[in-house]
């Protein structure tokens, strides 16, 4: 009681300046637990991983002797890892593009003041409620070339080998692998998009609802058609949402593991393998702890390439 009174009087008397600094201290104080936790559990462990990646720990017995970049050199000369880098790149691009496009289309459809909106919305949200471990298996069945959706597609004269397709398009020789889009990855993208679009639908739907009707009306008055209204007026307004969707989806796609592990595994000729799967297998099956750690470090560096431009631009926007 007493302290409250004094605190209050301090706030009141010194009004602006003191209270600001004091509150700033308090604000920073509230951040400290998070900073400490992130410091230890993210950066501390990244440091540990980095250290292991430079060590000789490639058996059950921990061996922390320093071997320099040996593990990295091994990885970059490894067919599987090269394939993984290619797969992650194209998976991420296709996945994020599809989530954005499909999410926007569904959101626009849902935003037409339709009946049963909540029913449709829940249908599109539903996959998010399921675990990747299970949906991976279901999609594996659905896209099985001999028993899955091909049975229906065949009637339309369409056919695809889905995730068993080992084609790389266009196959440009690069290191030990062929560089290009792994066709099999498209199947995985379909499953991942099915599962994750719900989130972008919700985000875009919220964004669309936030655009005032007057803005659209004004555009229409100027003679714009519906398509132009979306393209010229709404899309730019939705851009910040798109940025958030990209970040959240990028963190899912770059780390994707469960879905691929359950759905296709590494795939024939490693056409659907990703670093997450390789890391897990090489570390805990092969006991190549140092190699596994090196994969993690490369993944993190790849993420940095993605995220730093975003953060830089968002800082510019706010400064």
């Amino acid at each position, binding site marked *: 009681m007493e302290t409250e009174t004094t605190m209050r009087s301090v706030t009141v008397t010194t009004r602006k300046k003191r209270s600001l600094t004091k509150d700033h201290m*308090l604000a920073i104080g509230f951040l400290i637990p998070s900073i400490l936790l992130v410091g230890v559990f993210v*950066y501390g462990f990244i440091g540990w991983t980095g250290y292991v990646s430079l060590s000789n720990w490639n058996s059950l017995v921990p061996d922390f002797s320093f071997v320099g970049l040996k593990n990295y050199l091994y990885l970059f000369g490894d067919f599987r890892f090269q394939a993984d880098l290619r797969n992650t790149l194209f998976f991420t691009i296709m996945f994020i593009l599809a989530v954005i496009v499909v999410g926007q289309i*569904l959101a626009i459809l849902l935003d*037409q*003041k*339709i009946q049963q909106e909540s029913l449709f919305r829940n249908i599109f949200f*539903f996959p998010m409620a399921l675990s990747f471990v299970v949906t991976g298996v*279901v999609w594996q069945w659905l896209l099985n070339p001999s028993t899955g959706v091909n049975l229906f597609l065949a009637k339309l004269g369409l056919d695809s080998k889905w995730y068993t397709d080992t084609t790389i398009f266009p196959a440009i020789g690069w290191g030990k692998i062929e560089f290009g889009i792994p066709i099999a990855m498209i199947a995985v993208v379909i499953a991942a998009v099915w599962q994750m679009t719900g989130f972008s639908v*919700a985000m875009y739907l919220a964004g669309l609802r936030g655009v005032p009707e007057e803005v659209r009306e004004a555009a229409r008055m100027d003679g714009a058609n519906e398509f132009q209204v979306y393209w010229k007026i709404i899309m730019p307004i939705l851009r910040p949402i798109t940025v958030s969707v990209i970040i959240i989806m990028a963190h899912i796609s770059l780390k994707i593991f469960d879905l691929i592990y359950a759905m296709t595994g590494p795939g024939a000729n490693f056409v659907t393998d990703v670093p997450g799967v390789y890391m897990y297998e090489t570390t805990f099956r092969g006991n190549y702890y140092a190699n596994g750690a090196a994969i993690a470090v490369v993944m993190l560096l790849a993420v940095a390439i993605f995220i730093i431009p975003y953060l830089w631009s968002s800082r510019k926007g706010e400064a």
Partner: protein
Amino acid sequence: MAIRSFTRPILYALLIALSCFYLMPVYVMIITSLKPLEEVTLSQMWQLPTSLDFSSYSEAFTKLAPNLLNSFYLVIPATLLSALLGSLNGYVLSKWKFKGANTLFTIILFGMFIPYQSILIPLIQFLREIGLYNSIAGLVFVHVVYGIPITTLMFRNFYASIPDSMIESAKIDGAGFIGVYRFIMVPLSITGFVVVAIWQFTNIWNEFLFAVTITTSDQQPVMVALQNLSGSQIVQWNVQMAGALLAALPTLLVYIFLGKFFVKGLLAGSVKG
């Protein structure tokens, strides 16, 4: 605004077609879960079961039930705590900017991208040191820690849409750091809490890697128990699918009941991302 009326049937046709696509995997899950085991083969995946067989559900339920409770003990505190931490961080990083605040945000956000497989060993050893290994509390702790980046991101974006002028006037009225948070940010961000809670609830509920490595037998949440239904070599897919549908019920209910708020929350928050 709505597309003119004569295009309405096309709109509905499109929506229904897309819904069918979205429900196709669910259809396969449901019919598989109702089949006796010998009918669960790839060549019969589209066929309806010859007779309804609910035994998969009873088998899955008896095996999953004890772990279901664990999942609630895990998910509820973990979701609440990480939402609270995230909102405090987001508040500080959006409304009490200090020199280096953006850099700090960058540093925190980067933590979202850490591949969890690579840090299992030090994590498990750390948890054993502090005595949290093989406990729900340990799992709560892990999810709160690794939930910090994404909850901070979501709340920071959310709070960015609350005009600074509101905060300024509250400050002039004498509200400090805490007062602003309690009386302006929290009431305005209830929907934000819903968004983050749904996100965290779903992710923690469905998370498998930490759950399987940090807890054993009695402490395991339902997703691990679901995996336990399958063997090292043989998987009974009918029981697996029944179990998966049962295990998804809580998250599904969350979506059905909070789905509206989810959109509203995003509406209030992320527009100015």
